[in-house]
């Protein structure tokens, strides 16, 4: 999972989608990654977070670094 903090617009969608994986900074509302390698049971929620993020901050890559989405 790759997170581009520079693009984060602090909309909080990732926290709503996958609260075990993402949080918002109390200071400026931007994305906080709680779990860099979430268990498979979290995948649907992580994918939801990827799709809902209005600023395309989160992307998924496989082990060789190829971006999946």
């Amino acid at each position, binding site marked *: 999972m790759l997170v581009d903090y*520079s*693009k*984060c*617009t*602090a*909309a*909080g*969608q990732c*926290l*709503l989608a996958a609260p075990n994986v993402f*949080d*918002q*900074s*109390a*200071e*400026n*509302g*931007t994305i906080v990654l709680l779990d860099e390698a979430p268990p498979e049971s979290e995948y649907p929620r992580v994918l939801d977070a990827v*799709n*809902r993020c*209005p*600023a*395309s901050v989160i992307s998924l890559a496989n082990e060789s670094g190829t971006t999946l989405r």
Partner: protein
Amino acid sequence: MTMHDVDVKPIPIRKNPGRLETRLPLEEMNRSGTLMKFMYPNGVPGYMTTTADHFRRILSDPRFHAKRFLGEPQPTPVSVAVPDMPGFIPSMNGPDHLAVRRLAAGDFSVKHIRDLGAKIEQVVDKYLDETEAMGSPVDLFASYCLPIPSEVIAWILGVPTTHTQEFQMAARYTIGGLPEKLTDPEAPARAIKTLHELLADVITLKRKDPQDDLITRLTKATDPVLSDEEIWGLCTNLLLAGHETTSTNAAYQIAILLDRPDVKAEFLADPDRIPDFIEELLRFKAILTDSGAGIPRLATEDVEFDGVLIEKGEWVMPCAAAANVDASVCPHSPTELDLDRTPFPHLTFGFGAHTCLGQHLARAELKVIVPKIFERFPNLASEMAVDDLPWLESGFGYRMAELPVRWK
């Protein structure tokens, strides 16, 4: 305007002045899948997005800039001239915009807003009591829906109680005041000036006596440092953005439920699902989306978009109403209100870097304001059908003029 804009059709809204009538052919727009070009009532042409995909792409594309000023395409002759204010984030773009937005974003985060739940309940209860004391019949927009969001914003900003009443009055007049006062076209500009003076006073107070509130945090910001003018602009922005919109949406949702007893019964039967029901009401009808209004984007260079050449200097209006009836967002009977839908991410709060900063606050307020009025007045009834309610041209486009109700 270019020469070929002579043939551009007027945007098909506002059939009857004074009533909110969206005649945008949303499903047809959706099926067309192309950008549509309309002439707006203020004589400025602009493209409109017709699908959810367009909406997301235009709002994510850094070649399109958000810009608020009187020369943008507007669905109405806007009564509130938004002054050119430093710190006003809907007119900022790129990294500068994100940096200033983030200074306020912590106070509007999911968890911070969750912590405000008790405060919101307290403000709502106060205005329920005031409405009850006024007696039936009453204009519920003025007595209940309008004052709650501005009082909550005042609390978040840290406006001291000594200034709250003046703040509330100024807030009301920034959107033109109540209908009987709307004959004074200078009222909004005067209210903005009053707000300026009031906030300047509060900023000085916070610099001397720091508190745990947003204005104090803005006075201490370092990345970037904000001038008093920028703090004033940002605070005015937060008030305007969260005041008229939430008030009118609350009134609109209450009016819809009063008009549809079957839907109201379903809404009130399952308190745990009220947050989901509010989402569907926000998708189905919301003030900005239903009026075809939005914050338009200006092309900063020529952009080829799905076969359409958008020239540098042309406008694109992101249309959330069309996006929200797109099959990719809402697959079944999208033009119908259906509280049983599985929650899904509608686009009423926008997309991209300017996605509504106050969306969690709006939701937190609506999920208290809307059900509580029916708890307090179980036989609340509207004096008018929802389609007959009067609307005014106002700051963002439209707002409800009044919501006359009675109870026994």
